[in-house]
């Protein structure tokens, strides 16, 4: 143990040449990090770039062999620590906040004892629990179980538990990724407060918006290496390394936003003359005592992208499923081309199923795991009535339409990347040459860079084929980028609808304003 004198002078973190290899594959190749007390360093990069591994290596939790020429945590040399010594360090000097707050909390344990655990482990007084919960804005919730808390509250409970033993360094791995925009903003505020209080924070994130708000410095990772590092504002304004440039460009809304806004503005007059393809009239859906959708009226016109925007649990997916006829409405109607749709039994609407297609939230789950891309597209074409002889050519052209290399069609979905899977899902949806695409969170599982290309693809299909697209999303950026009109949903009700430019620039409903404020 180091003396108190050296501890004051030592930086919170000092890492040189951090390396990690698993099965002979180098996943981290010499990462250097420095962090002072009260400073926030953001580690950003595409998925698979090694950010999470770096975070875990800092706590001695990484799998495989970790090597470093220097690994100092608050003045302690952690290079040769055994598991027992690491345990003394974790929680007390350096703590981790995980991405998935629900699985990180023990479902059978009350929040209070979760927060008290690090204190018990390190033999500290337990009287700080209530103060700690108050600090993360969960006063008096110490007797609650995790399932009684919302996603944001769980994340705050997790942060309280990480902070309980007063660590010098907090490692937060994607702490806001699973959360809604307004909740995200609150978590970021909390992290900023902690920083002001002298805690050093390593923020692992792919969300540059979050990074820009609280990080002092940004480190960009690419294929296991730290390729660029610098002050947040400077790096985001003028990235140098190609990987950094790609990240910043993918996250940058402004150029696209302007064109979309003006585009929507000019379309506004024309739009009312376009034919309506899908219409919801007073749709209601209840699950037991809860009302998921409370009387939704919605109109989708040809060649138009409608963004259905709302936080998780707002009922937007249920509304989309009502429109698709995958869920039976308790009241109201969905009309397809002005004809009855949702009220019909499956048997009599099967003929017209091809008119309206779905792109699901999780593309991998939407494919039969035994089938290759070719078989998947072949089946879709068969259902669309394409005779066997013509299928091979159509399969090829579908792949080309969605910019998917036809050679990849011999693979099974599991062997494709996230972006490729989503392209395959879109290709399948196009097989029947539909008039309406319903895309449920089509890009939420994708990296920022891939996200842009998938959104561009949807926008191109709308333009070239006059497709009507309903995009269900919690991400304002998606609506801003490709939406013509937007419907804002909250607790089962559509609180505001209109052209994207109007709603985003002059929001009328307070909730829309709150959403906008949280995202900027």
């Amino acid at each position, binding site marked *: 143990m180091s003396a108190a004198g050296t501890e004051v002078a030592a930086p919170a973190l000092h890492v040189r040449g951090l390396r990690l290899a698993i099965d002979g594959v180098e996943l981290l190749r010499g990462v250097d990090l420095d962090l002072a007390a009260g400073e926030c360093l953001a580690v950003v990069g595409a998925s698979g770039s090694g950010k999470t591994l770096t975070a875990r290596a800092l706590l001695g939790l990484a799998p495989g062999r970790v090597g470093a020429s220097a690994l100092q945590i608050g003045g302690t040399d952690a290079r040769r620590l055994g598991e027992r010594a690491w345990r003394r360090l974790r929680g007390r000097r350096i703590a981790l906040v995980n991405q998935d707050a629900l699985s990180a909390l023990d479902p059978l344990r009350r929040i209070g004892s979760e927060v008290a655990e690090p204190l018990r482990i390190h033999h500290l007084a337990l009287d700080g629990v209530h103060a700690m919960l108050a600090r993360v804005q969960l006063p008096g919730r110490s007797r609650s179980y995790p399932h009684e808390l919302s996603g944001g509250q769980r994340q705050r409970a997790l942060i309280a538990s990480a902070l309980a033993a007063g660590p010098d360094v907090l490692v937060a791995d994607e702490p806001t990724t699973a959360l809604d925009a307004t909740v995200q903003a609150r978590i970021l505020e909390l992290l900023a407060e902690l920083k002001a209080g002298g805690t050093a924070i390593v923020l692992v994130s792919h969300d540059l918006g979050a990074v820009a708000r609280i990080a002092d410095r940004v480190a960009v990772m690419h294929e296991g290496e730290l390729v660029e590092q610098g002050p947040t504002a400077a790096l985001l304004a003028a990235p140098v390394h190609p990987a950094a440039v790609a990240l910043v460009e993918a996250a940058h809304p402004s150029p696209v936003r302007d064109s979309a806004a003006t585009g929507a503005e000019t379309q506004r007059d024309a739009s009312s003359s376009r034919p309506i393809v899908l219409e919801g009239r007073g749709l209601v859906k209840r699950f037991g005592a809860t009302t998921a959708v409370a009387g939704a009226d919605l109109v989708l016109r040809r060649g138009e992208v409608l963004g259905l925007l709302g936080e998780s649990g707002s009922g937007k997916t249920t509304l989309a499923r009502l429109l698709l006829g*995958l869920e039976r409405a308790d009241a109201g109607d969905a009309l397809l081309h002005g004809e009855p749709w949702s009220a019909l039994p499956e048997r009599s609407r099967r003929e017209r199923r091809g008119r309206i297609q779905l792109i699901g939230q999780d593309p991998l*789950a939407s494919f039969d795991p035994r089938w290759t891309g*070719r*078989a998947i597209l*072949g*089946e879709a074409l068969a259902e669309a009535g394409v005779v066997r002889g013509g299928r091979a050519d159509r399969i090829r052209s579908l792949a080309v339409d969605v910019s998917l290399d036809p050679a990849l069609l011999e693979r099974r979905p599991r062997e494709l990347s996230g972006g490729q899977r989503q392209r395959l899902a879109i290709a399948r949806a196009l097989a029947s040459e539909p008039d309406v695409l319903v895309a449920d969170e089509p890009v939420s599982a994708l990296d920022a860079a891939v996200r842009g290309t998938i959104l561009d693809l949807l926008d191109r299909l709308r333009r070239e084929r006059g497709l009507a697209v309903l995009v269900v999303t919690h991400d304002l950026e998606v609506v801003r980028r490709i939406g013509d009109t937007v419907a804002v949903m909250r607790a089962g009700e559509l609180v505001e609808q209109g052209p994207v430019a109007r709603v985003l620039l002059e929001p009328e409903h307070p909730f829309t304003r709150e959403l906008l404020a949280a995202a900027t």
Partner: protein
Amino acid sequence: MSAVVPGARRALVLPRWRPGAVPALIAAIVLALLLLAALWPSLIAPGSPTATDARAGTLPPDSAHWFGTDRSGRDVFTRVVHGAGASLGLGLGATGLALVAGGLLGALAGLAPRRVDGVLARAVDVLMALPEFLVALLLIAILGPGTGSVLVAVALAAVPAYARVARVRTQQLARSAFVESALVLGQRPWKRVLRHVLPNLLGPLLTMAALGLGTAIVSAAGLGFLGLGATPPAPEWGVLLSEGRNLLGTAWWVAVFPGAAITVSVVCASVLGRWLGGRR
């Protein structure tokens, strides 16, 4: 069943080779030898399994009679080898029958309206409460003794276990996103079941069958031992075991070698089944 679509692959894919798979490899080799004995016994033991030799009664194992001879001078090795066909055949046949019947019953329950499903599921629960061997004995009591009865009894006794797994899996599959995707494409219900539900059911059921094979061999041999299966001169392992039972004090080899054959085949089937089930 799954070969209809180009590009669709088999439900059961062999796991990648690892050093830990050595026991499974040995088990597979032994089972292959046993299968060879079952399919072509005279290749390994050219003599007749029922040929008696009054001068060579109850001889201990030697170079001429590897497993010794029984009281009538029949060669025990020849009888064990020729018994493989009946014993393994019963085990495999009963397992296959149970898989198909249980799988279909379970799939039916999983897809049926709630009320029908409730009746089927509770019936399966009741049967699961009884030990499989007891159910098989009850069935033999109804069907009367004989090899065919043993096959049917062992198979039916195992049906509830397969039906239960198949039912739960079917319900999961029917609600899965990819079956819903097929619905969105406009696919008819029976086609969805045939193309997406049943083939995906096969994997877990085959894994179960690989583990259940050992149980089925033991049950079939057990019924043979009780004299409810093959009739005595026929060389079925359970029958051989019961013939040797009275000689255990004087000629241990008559009972021990058939018993060892049962044990070895059950252990090998379990080791291989466990390995196949533990993949992924």
